[in-house]
Every structure is written in structure tokens, then in C-alpha cells.
């Protein structure tokens, strides 16, 4: 593949280094991150390719890539990197930046899941598994997804429609608001 580089190649790399507090220029392309990644075969770019694209300042390719959305944050790459680059944190930074700047994820269900997860914590104080699964199925229109498992869990008394009342959910809402104000709009 041939990439067109523009003049201010280093700007994007610098931005990512700053936002993540990780020096992306120390990556020397050994490929160890990619060798250990459990999800690499589903990705559009391998983790080391993402690192190189950032170094080359190819913002569009990076923020349109499927790869950050398929990172499970298992941190095998971060653990094994001989240069101490926190690649998982870079992937997190890329997800935040892509959303802030309005890039459409090619894995909308991953985005939906993340949103529903955070909203559930904001509203209920903690994650309620049944609520999470039901809202997710409704939103993604997969009404019978995992119904087999749901039925078994219900029979075992592990899930129910009522939820724990957690104290302090009001505090939670204001903490969410203050973090949003701090980070700026878009997340």
C-alpha cells in the first residue's frame, strides 16, 4: 500500500503522545505486540502497523481503522513491549479521539455496548447485568440474543428484573457531569 505523507507528519504523533502520555516514537517495529494479540486476525491493521501509521502522521487511516475498536484491552501487548510502550493505552486514546472528532466506528455494536455500559453505571451506580443485556439487545435489535443463556441463568436464580439499590447515585451523576466538563464535549 502506498501512503501519501503530508508536511506536518509529526503533529498527529505528537498529539497522540500528549493525550496518552506514552511516547509513540520509541516503537521500533519488532512486532511483539502483534504476535501476542489474541484478536489480531479480526483487525484491519495489526497493532504494530497502527503504531507506524501514527508515527507517519496518517491520521485518517488510524482513526478510520477497525483495530482500536477490536482491542479487548487485555494488555498483552503492553506487558511484552520491549520498549515499554503502553499500546493498550494508545488504543484507548484513539477510541476517545475518534469519537470526539466524529469518526464513525465500523463496529457500531462495540460503541453501543460501551455507551450502555457507562449509562448503566451512571444511572444505577453499579453495573446491573440483566439491565445491560436487555438494553443492549433492544438497542441493537437482536431480541433473542443469548436467550438460551438468559433462561438458564434465570432458572438458577442468578438474574432477576429487580436490581440492588445502591446509595449515592446522585453523587455519581454529578461526578459524570464534572468529568465531562473537564474532558470537554464529545465523549
Amino acid at each position, binding site marked *: 500500500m502506498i501512503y501519501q505523507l503530508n508536511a506536518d507528519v509529526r503533529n498527529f504523533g505528537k498529539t497522540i503522545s500528549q493525550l496518552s502520555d506514552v511516547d509513540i516514537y520509541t516503537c521500533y517495529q519488532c512486532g511483539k505486540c502483534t504476535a501476542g494479540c489474541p484478536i489480531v486476525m479480526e483487525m484491519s491493521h495489526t497493532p504494530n502497523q497502527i503504531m507506524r501509521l501514527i508515527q507517519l502522521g496518517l491520521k485518517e487511516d488510524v482513526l478510520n481503522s477497525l483495530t482500536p475498536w477490536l482491542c479487548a484491552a487485555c494488555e*498483552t501487548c*503492553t*506487558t511484552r513491549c520491549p520498549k515499554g510502550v503502553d499500546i493498550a493505552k494508545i488504543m484507548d486514546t484513539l477510541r476517545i479521539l475518534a469519537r470526539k472528532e466524529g469518526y464513525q466506528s465500523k463496529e457500531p455494536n462495540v460503541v453501543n455496548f460501551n455507551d450502555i455500559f457507562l449509562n448503566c453505571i451512571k444511572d444505577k451506580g453499579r453495573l446491573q447485568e440483566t439491565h*445491560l443485556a436487555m438494553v443492549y439487545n433492544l438497542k441493537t435489535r437482536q431480541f433473542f440474543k443469548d436467550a438460551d*443463556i438468559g433462561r438458564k*441463568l434465570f432458572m438458577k436464580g442468578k438474574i432477576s428484573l429487580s436490581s440492588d439499590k445502591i446509595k449515592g447515585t446522585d453523587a455519581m451523576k454529578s461526578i459524570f457531569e464534572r468529568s465531562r466538563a*473537564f474532558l470537554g464535549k464529545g465523549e
Partner: protein
Amino acid sequence: MAYGYYPGCSSHGTAKEYDISTKKVCERLGLKLEEVLALALPFRNLVLAEKQGLDSIMSTCSACYNRLKVAHETLKRAPEILNRISEIVGEPYNKTLKVIHFLDLISKEFGVEKIKESVMKPLTGLKAVSYYGCLLTRPPELVSIDPDAENPTIMEEIIEALGAETPYWSHKTECCGASFALSRTDIVLRLTNEILKAARFADADCIVVACPLCFANLDMRQSQIASKYGVNYSLPVLFISELMGIAMGMGYKELGIDKHIVSAKDLLKGKE
């Protein structure tokens, strides 16, 4: 002094038996637990545990442990981040807590040697592989419960103290894809299938876990794996606290093991 116990999100849902068995085992060992009933916000939980007058906070869930530990260690190292977060949450944190996982509690606070004394029915002949997943050891410099993040053995030491065998195997720290359980279930099925296959290859009778998310994927998805990959493992998955309870002479139902989807009844027959 009681240990602070943060039960997390799953212990009143899909991992009820982990909560039940943890409490029973701790009671038997004389380890006092005091619940920190808090919101799912690591920083605030650290603050609340401090306010409750506790000097430690113990989680049974790897994800809860990982987030609490990363928050605590980061705040210890970066005062500017501590100031910023204290401002957002509106409360100060004095960094006095010891953040530990259930495995730390058993192995480091209580001691593996003493566990042997509590065993009433040694699990002789049982082959149990331990599965750590991602979050108990990574990133190693901040969270690892074992000095060797690639080949931890803290859980094996406990299993051996209970009298069981624990074969060496390849997948103890491989990822099960937990965060994609709903959004990319296909990935979870593939990764979980690999883990079950490796456990079977190591001739294991069961997989032992110390995390509700690892448990959920490994125990709940076996019938979906059977339809997709054509292999019906029927391999029981047990929480480490359940295995300890059985070795201490507690009952299958008493520990909540009857709530598993893959039954461990035949496996534990005669061992209770």
C-alpha cells in the same frame, strides 16, 4: 482488623456463588470481612473504604481489583492526577489503603502453609488447571499478584495445598475476550474454545478461576461453543473459593456450586 470487601457488580448476579463461597471460606479461616457497598467508581471506593476506617480493600473480581489497584498506584505516583480527580469527585484520598485480590488475601495475608491445616478432605486425584486471564497480572508493574506475569503460580500453590494436582498448561493468562461478551460474541466463543481445548489437552478435570468475568465466559458459553465448533467439553469451571470450601468439608449446595451451568456434581461426588 477486618478486611474491606468490595463485592463488585457480579456477586449479586451471575457470580452469586463466588460471593457465597468467599464469605464461607473466610469465616472458616477467621478472616473478618467488612463490605464496602459502593458505586462502580474506583477512586470513590478507595475514598469510602478509607472513611470506613479500613486499612485494606479486597476484591474477588479481577476487573474490580485491577481498576482499584491501577487507580491507587497511579495516584500514589502522580500527585497532579490525584489533585484533579479529588476535585472532580469532591473528596480527598490519603492513599493509606492496601489494595488486594482474594488470592492475595489467601496466599499472602493468611498463608498457603496454614491453608493446609484447614483441609479436612484433601482433593486427592483431582486435576485442576488455574486460569488467571488478563487482569490479575497485567500491567505487571502496577497490578501483578505474582512476580511472574507470564507464568503466575499463586493459584497453583493454593490448589496444591488443597491436595489436588495442577497440570502445567498453555492458556493460563490468555484473554477470553470478556469485554466483547455481548458486542462480538463470535470473538469470545473462539477465544473461549481455545482455552477449553487447551485445558482438555492438559487432561484437566476442571478449570479454576478467580474472576466472575472469566467464569461467565467459560461456564455459560459451553453449549454455544458446542453448536459452533462441534465439541461438547462439559468441563466444569470452579471458583477458587468453591474448591477451598469443598476441601474444607463444606457442601456442594452450601457453597452455591449447584448454580453453575456446567454441572460439577459428578466431579465433586464423594469429595464433599
